[in-house]
């Protein structure tokens, strides 16, 4: 079941949010759209917002579809923080986990026509720091403000 978002504006320059969602629409409406608005208020560029939104969507799809196997009884747990210096998104699903190192390189010529497997690559490209939980069912993604 979805829970109300707990948004805390700690100061004018910092925003935090925690939420658990059982589907993509809830997570998108309660977290991603607010995060995008906060990023713009904090002076991040439209391109930065695009990058973080894309990484968020890719991680969310992995969590809901691959992690939780689209089981509505399972939730995705999210925490986000935004400041003028960095954006951090933490996400954990209730699935069995996976080893990101086992995902084939989607850019290899043999894999170009493989329909899936690009999400992790895009997350790593658009975020500055990406750490997968040892359990394989969580990820922490950080983007830093360019000087």
């Amino acid at each position, binding site marked *: 079941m979805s829970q109300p978002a707990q948004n805390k504006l700690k100061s004018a320059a910092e925003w935090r949010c925690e939420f658990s969602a059982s589907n*993509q629409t809830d997570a998108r409406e309660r977290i991603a759209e607010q995060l995008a608005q906060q990023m713009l208020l904090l002076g991040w560029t439209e391109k930065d917002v*695009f990058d973080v939104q894309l990484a968020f*969507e*890719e991680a969310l799809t992995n969590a*809901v579809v691959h992690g939780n196997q689209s089981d509505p009884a399972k939730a995705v747990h999210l925490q986000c923080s935004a400041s003028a210096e960095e954006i951090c998104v933490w996400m954990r699903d209730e699935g069995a986990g996976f080893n990101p190192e086992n995902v084939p390189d*989607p850019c290899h010529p043999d894999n170009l026509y493989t*329909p899936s497997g*690009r999400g992790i*690559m895009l997350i790593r490209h658009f975020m500055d720091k990406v750490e997968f939980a040892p359990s394989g069912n969580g990820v922490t993604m950080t983007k830093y403000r360019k000087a």
Partner: protein
Amino acid sequence: MIRTEIKQINDCTVVRCLTSKLNDEYAIQEWGDELMQAAKSPGKAFVVDFNQVMFMSSSALRVLITLQKTLALQDVPLLLCGLNDSILDIFKITNLDSIFKIRKGTEEAIRSLPYLE
């Protein structure tokens, strides 16, 4: 739901995507079904116009790859057009710009088709 407009122009199927964000997994699956239905009678070429699209996740890439493979079996070219810079970056990062024919706009895409020469 992803809104699309499908027309036949110069014996080509031209699909205009009218939704600005292609990010919902289930909506993208439905959109993929709609494209695959249109690909059953594609004409001499199949054009997908993303001029109205501001955001695209990798789920949409999956649909386009499947569409490309289906059309290739019929020897029908697939052309993509109207990609903004951020979305074009996604194709470049994933090397998919090497397997898709990408044009600026629908008119240029149709003009570039060899059978019209």
